[in-house]
């Protein structure tokens, strides 16, 4: 017997899907922003900080990179709830995502910072720039430019990976789809629709990052090189 697809009843819930997709994007936006800041600070600490700080950051990076996001989220969100520390679920999820993506960003930014040649820093020193100025203008900008494609991949993966956080009760795209499944019983169709929406979001996100790259890296725009 042939299966009869019924997308009609699933698509009736389009507004819910859109609402969920929007939530996913909001979560990804804040986690990316804060995760980038955290990761960059950790990368700085790991490349130039005192020994104890380097070890601390190294430990954080290794622990997070070698355990699943889902376990981290359970540990953090259910754990905090168990000791009575209540917070809005959106906030908890963003924190879990930031802790997670911060560690990956640390490694990528560290590679970028270490790729800056000694001579660049010497030249800036000889021009009289302060340490902070050197870091900001001579190290950070070109380092970020160099690893930008890797960063983009990280953040797109983060957006996709955030789907598992529906398990802690956040109503992002995957979370709302559970509700649609339970009322329509059209599981397969729901997953097809989810796949299409996520794929579209991946493309949109890549496009946005591309445009952002053009905006903040004028050299990339001018020379059209992938660097």
């Amino acid at each position, binding site marked *: 017997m042939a299966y009869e697809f019924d997308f009609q009843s699933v698509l009736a819930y389009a507004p819910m899907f859109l609402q969920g997709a929007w939530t996913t994007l909001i979560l990804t936006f804040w986690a990316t922003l804060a995760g980038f800041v955290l990761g960059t600070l950790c990368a700085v600490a790991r490349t130039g900080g005192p020994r104890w700080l380097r070890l601390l950051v190294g430990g954080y990076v290794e622990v997070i990179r070698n355990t699943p996001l889902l376990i981290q989220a359970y540990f953090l969100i259910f754990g905090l709830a168990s000791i009575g520390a209540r917070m809005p679920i959106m906030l908890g999820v963003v924190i879990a995502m930031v802790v997670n993506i911060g560690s990956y960003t640390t490694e990528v930014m560290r590679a970028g910072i270490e790729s800056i040649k000694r001579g660049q820093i*010497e030249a800036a020193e000889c*021009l009289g720039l302060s340490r902070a100025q050197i870091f900001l203008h001579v190290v950070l900008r070109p380092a970020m430019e160099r690893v930008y494609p890797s960063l983009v991949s990280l953040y797109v993966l983060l957006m996709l990976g955030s789907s598992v956080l529906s398990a802690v009760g956040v109503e992002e795209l995957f979370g709302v789809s559970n509700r649609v499944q339970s009322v329509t019983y059209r599981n397969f169709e729901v997953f097809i629709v989810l796949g299409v929406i996520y794929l579209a979001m991946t493309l949109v996100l890549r496009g946005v990052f591309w445009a952002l790259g053009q905006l903040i890296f004028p050299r990339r725009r001018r*020379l059209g090189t992938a660097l």
Partner: protein
Amino acid sequence: MSALVKFVDMHKSFGDLEILKGVTFSVERGEVVAIIGQSGSGKSTALRCMDRLETIQGGELWVCGHALHRDDVDLKALRRDVGIVFQSYNLFPHLTAEQNVALAPRLVASKSHAEASDIAQAVLSKVGLAEKRAAYPEQLSGGQQQRVAIARSLAMQPKLMLFDEVTSALDPKLTGEVLRVMERLAADGMTMILVTHEMQFARNVADRVVYMRDGRIHEMGGPEILIKPQTPELADFITHEQ
């Protein structure tokens, strides 16, 4: 005291390895001094010491009134007085020629964007690259990049310019355009110390030539010593360089 740079029995070592074993000489305001010698003779190290890219272990070193042998040297003031150009240009790849030049005036001398940009354009025309100001380093030839690097140092109006083998990475055609810029600077009265392999240039432009060997000054004098060396070692060196 009119000496802008003064070495007094200056010693420098890296760990157990002594690179400079007591160097004494001084450079007057407006002088152009060429330092020559084999690689490993300590000439580049001596130059780097003058901008405190290396710390010294013994003796005295005075540069533009700053005592570099002391720990309390004001690095920021020193580096406003001294400009240095490297063999590998070290331009900032993500900035245009003009932005490279304008960076220090903006950040260190706290000039406005417009002022810094004016300064940049002025020094870029001085090195003959006014029309390349919007180009990124990778769009420029080696010679052009080195001229931008010179302009970048000049933008801070240094009292002393140091040149560390600035033409060694360039082919002969591009070497000429860089040397011409340096010649013009010398003619304008800039005090310059250069480590170089360009004997011809040293002979034409330098007021004084310092031949270093094994961490010491082996022979020093006017440019004529390149034609009539007093020591067999310098004679030998000149023969091999040509």
